[in-house]
């Protein structure tokens, strides 16, 4: 690991000042950053440790019934907050479906939003990667790419965003609060992550030195709590990133869908909000025909970027399954194996 300088600021203002130095990055849970530094994928000159900044580790309820989550709240702490899991069960289920107990305990809300792609060519400094080194080329295009993007990719980059947490956040209109050298601003979670285009090195809308300080979910999004699920297909049923995932949230009235939210994970460089699919569901009877139309709409623009055409059909089926399970109702408690798309069969184990 390259030698770096360590700074522990006492306030957000001090942190932003410290991060103005060239080559500076913020350190929160460290689960992604330190791993990337050990592999020399990232070689920062300075770590600005924000974990002791006051006031950023709180979960606050807002007047509209929404919630404001400090950027330093740990993933596990948020998922196990009873009031949060009741209001936003699909978000809690997504958090608990990710990584391992150790990593969920260390990883933070802000860090999860900013985690880097798991593309092996991005991680390997000996491979060509336009995201790591602009203009270098993309070894993923002709390489092992069965888990790469099927939506929103470009010739320059076919990487996906790995977060589970961000998928229901995109569906539920989360807002990111940012502080930086130019002051305070907000962006919709949906606009935080950029599609690659010709500049895959710019993964987010953050300007240099900007710090995520909080995340908000609107009270209106808690109105989906009775019918909200996050489902995730992974290559083993614990401690694995999504091949494809889906967050589905519905408001139902007499068997008809009043409002629908749908987002996909593992398919693009950002959590993929499927608005056309949502619109196709409004006002129609909740059932397989409607789910099938929604799944078609959600993947209408999808095309393989390599050996990954299977992900398109997998995503369609997962959308249908997520919608069907959302109609069936949010479970009273988060399943012991969170986000599993497999039905619980007595005697069968999905967790071995």
């Amino acid at each position, binding site marked *: 690991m390259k*030698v*770096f*300088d360590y700074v522990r600021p006492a306030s957000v203002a001090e942190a932003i000042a410290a991060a103005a130095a060239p080559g500076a990055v913020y350190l929160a849970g460290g689960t992604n950053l330190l791993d990337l530094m050990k592999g020399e994928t990232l070689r920062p000159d300075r770590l600005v440790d924000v974990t002791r900044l006051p006031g950023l580790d709180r979960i606050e309820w807002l007047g509209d019934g929404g919630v404001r989550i400090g950027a330093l709240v740990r993933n596990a702490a948020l998922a196990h907050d009873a009031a949060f899991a009741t209001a936003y069960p699909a978000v809690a289920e997504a958090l608990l479906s990710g990584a391992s107990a150790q990593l969920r305990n260390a990883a933070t809300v802000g860090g999860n939003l900013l985690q880097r792609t798991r593309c092996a060519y991005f991680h390997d400094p000996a491979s060509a990667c336009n995201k790591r080194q602009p203009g270098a080329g993309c070894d993923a295009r002709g390489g092992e790419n069965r888990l790469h993007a099927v939506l929103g990719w470009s010739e320059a980059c076919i990487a996906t965003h790995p977060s589970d947490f961000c998928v229901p956040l995109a569906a539920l209109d989360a807002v990111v609060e940012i502080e930086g050298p130019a002051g305070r601003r907000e962006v919709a979670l949906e606009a935080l992550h950029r599609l690659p285009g010709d500049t895959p090195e710019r993964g987010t809308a953050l300007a240099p030195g900007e710090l995520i300080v909080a995340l908000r979910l609107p009270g209106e999004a808690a109105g989906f709590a009775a019918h909200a699920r996050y489902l995730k297909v992974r290559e083993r049923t614990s401690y694995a990133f999504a091949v494809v995932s889906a967050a589905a949230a519905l408001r139902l009235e007499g068997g008809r869908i009043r409002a629908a939210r749908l987002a996909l994970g593992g398919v693009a460089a950002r959590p993929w909000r499927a608005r056309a699919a949502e619109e196709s569901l409004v006002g129609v009877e909740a059932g397989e025909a409607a789910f099938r139309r929604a799944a078609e709409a959600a993947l209408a623009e999808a095309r393989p970027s390599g050996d990954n055409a299977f992900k398109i059909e997998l995503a369609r089926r997962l959308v249908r399954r997520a919608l069907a399970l959302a109609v069936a109702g949010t479970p009273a408690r988060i399943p*012991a194996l969170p986000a599993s798309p497999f039905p619980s069969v007595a005697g069968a184990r999905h*967790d071995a």
Partner: protein
Amino acid sequence: MSKIHVTTTVNGEPAEFLCQPGNSLLDALRDDLNLTGSKEGCSSGDCGACSVIVDGRLVCSCLMLAVEAEGKSITTIEGIANGDVLHPLQRKFLEHAALQCGFCTPGFLVAAKALLDHNPDPTETEARYWLAGNLCRCTGYDKIIRAVLDAAAEMRAGAPAGE
């Protein structure tokens, strides 16, 4: 570059060490404090062999900087037993032969203790899911899970009523 002085608490005792910014907590535990029970397996947060409990949270000590330990309270595998009396988890690992080479065992024991601290009566699925971040390449997981569930049952039976 000058080293950074860190004051912390390890297994209930005050501890201090000097470190470079790039040293992990695992480096400090093993090389500076001579607590070599925590193991370096993957060094990337995948295997759990370096698991420790920091301020009540189970984490991988390979993914925490040593300098971050300032003012924290850390429990390592060396702090699990009560003097010469093994923790029930340690005893059950022996009874169930839940180890072969033993490299992953300290991490499993610390992770299992963290589980039972928060959930004294886990289902088998809950125990397996919680321990997914600890990898074993020789014993397999069945004996480990049996040992953890057996220890949990014994600890529940031994706890005074009302607790």
